[in-house]
């Protein structure tokens, strides 16, 4: 039986893993290679790294980390890939096929494309043709507005888009996306649970897997993403970064509740 994937999310800014909140506030929390090693030891199902470095911004001035700037993103990827024996998705700031080639060539199994997928769907098609749809993940960021309506945003949450979320997701599927990584801007870092409504609307609109992301505060939120959101995989950042042994405990929790998760641990 196909397992429900539980996916740690790692946001990179200027070469450091950061905690993100509302797509606006960021705090450096670690080294990307060390984080990969930790999740490797925990036998994570998959890792997703998203480079959310803003254009024109520079490093945090931290000298205690090995990686200083966004220029080093490929060097970071190479070091991660060298000992990453689990699926690795890499994305953010992907604009051209040359960017995709660079990520795949240096060890990414999948590439996540966000804003550029909206602006240039032909790139999604070209990547799917070149590397297969399974390597082409489209990242969709949605915000629930004050009036309750959901709106897709691009440019790291700064530019709203008029197209309805379901229509956009279907368009990306038709363009060649093999998977959708759905992130909720207003739930990001909020620990209030997934936006299950939009997750379900998008998961039901497409026939490719949808990865729910944004807002997990406790393990029961994973259940809501699966049961009510119809997600094929559940992703989270903070709960794994900040809670001791939380990855394995999350798996144990889901297994005990009867979910088909991979549990490669003794006992």
């Amino acid at each position, binding site marked *: *039986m*196909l*397992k*429900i*994937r539980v996916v740690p999310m790692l946001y990179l800014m200027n070469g450091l893993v950061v905690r993100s909140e509302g797509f606006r506030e960021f705090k450096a929390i670690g080294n990307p290679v060390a984080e990969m090693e930790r999740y*490797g030891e925990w*036998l994570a*199902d*998959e890792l997703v790294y998203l480079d959310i470095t803003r254009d024109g911004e520079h490093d945090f001035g931290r000298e205690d980390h090995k990686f200083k700037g966004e220029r080093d993103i490929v060097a970071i990827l190479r070091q991660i*890939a*060298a*000992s*990453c*024996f*689990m*699926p*690795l998705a890499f994305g953010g700031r992907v604009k051209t096929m040359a960017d995709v080639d660079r990520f*795949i060539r*240096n*060890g990414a*199994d999948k590439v996540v494309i966000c804003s550029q997928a909206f602006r240039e769907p032909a790139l999604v098609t070209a990547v799917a*043709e*070149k*590397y*297969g*749809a*399974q*390597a082409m993940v489209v990242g969709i960021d949605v915000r629930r507005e004050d009036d309750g309506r959901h709106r897709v945003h691009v440019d790291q949450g700064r530019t709203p888009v008029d197209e309805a979320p379901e229509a956009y997701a279907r368009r990306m599927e038709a363009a060649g996306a*093999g*998977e959708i990584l759905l992130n909720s801007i207003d739930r990001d870092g909020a620990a209030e649970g997934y936006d299950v409504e939009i997750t379900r609307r998008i998961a039901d609109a497409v*026939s*490719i*897997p949808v990865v729910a992301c944004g807002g997990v505060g406790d393990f029961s939120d994973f259940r809501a993403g699966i049961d009510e959101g119809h997600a*094929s*995989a559940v992703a989270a950042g903070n709960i794994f970064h900040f809670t001791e042994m939380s990855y394995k405990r999350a798996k144990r929790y889901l297994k005990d509740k009867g979910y088909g998760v*991979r549990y*490669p641990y003794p006992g």
Partner: protein
Amino acid sequence: MIGIVSCGIGNVQSVLNAFARLGHEAMAVEDPARLGEADRIVLPGVGAFPSCMRRLQESGFRAALDRDVKSGKPFLGVCVGMQLMAETGTEFGDMPGLGYIPGRVELIPKTSPDLRIPHIGWNDLRIARPTPLLAGLDTDSACYFVHSYALRCAEEQDVAAWTDYGSPVVAAVARGNVFGLQAHPEKSQLVGLRILDNFARLPC
């Protein structure tokens, strides 16, 4: 030494990394003339069947592989690398494959409307018969799969393991010295490393 076919159709580096972790000597082979230096061969594949097959032909690897596989060298096709072992691919129209395993590569049957394709994620291996490639694995060992097409063997005895996704899907094949794995062993943590270790230890 393990030779990894490197002609731009697979993630060679990940396979090299996995063998390095296991302590087995492996190298990327970019020139088919040097394939003979390897005592066993891995063919990783990612992407569409026709473009991979064309690359194998144009790069000259097709002929080199045929010769080495016929000579009895252990051979392992991974993911699309396994699909290429079939007689025929059907992605974007029928096209002959390497022909090491009788059968066709076809789209995974969409047996229910909510079956999502591609088949992405960890799924259990259901061992069909004992083979050295899968030695030491439990029948519920999960591996990481990512594919939309699957090999349908014409001869059931070639199937070494199944996985279930809407219907039984061939997960591994074994026929003499040729082996194939639909999942990605280099991305399947301890289970995958065990499979690669088994392959590296096959007598040759």
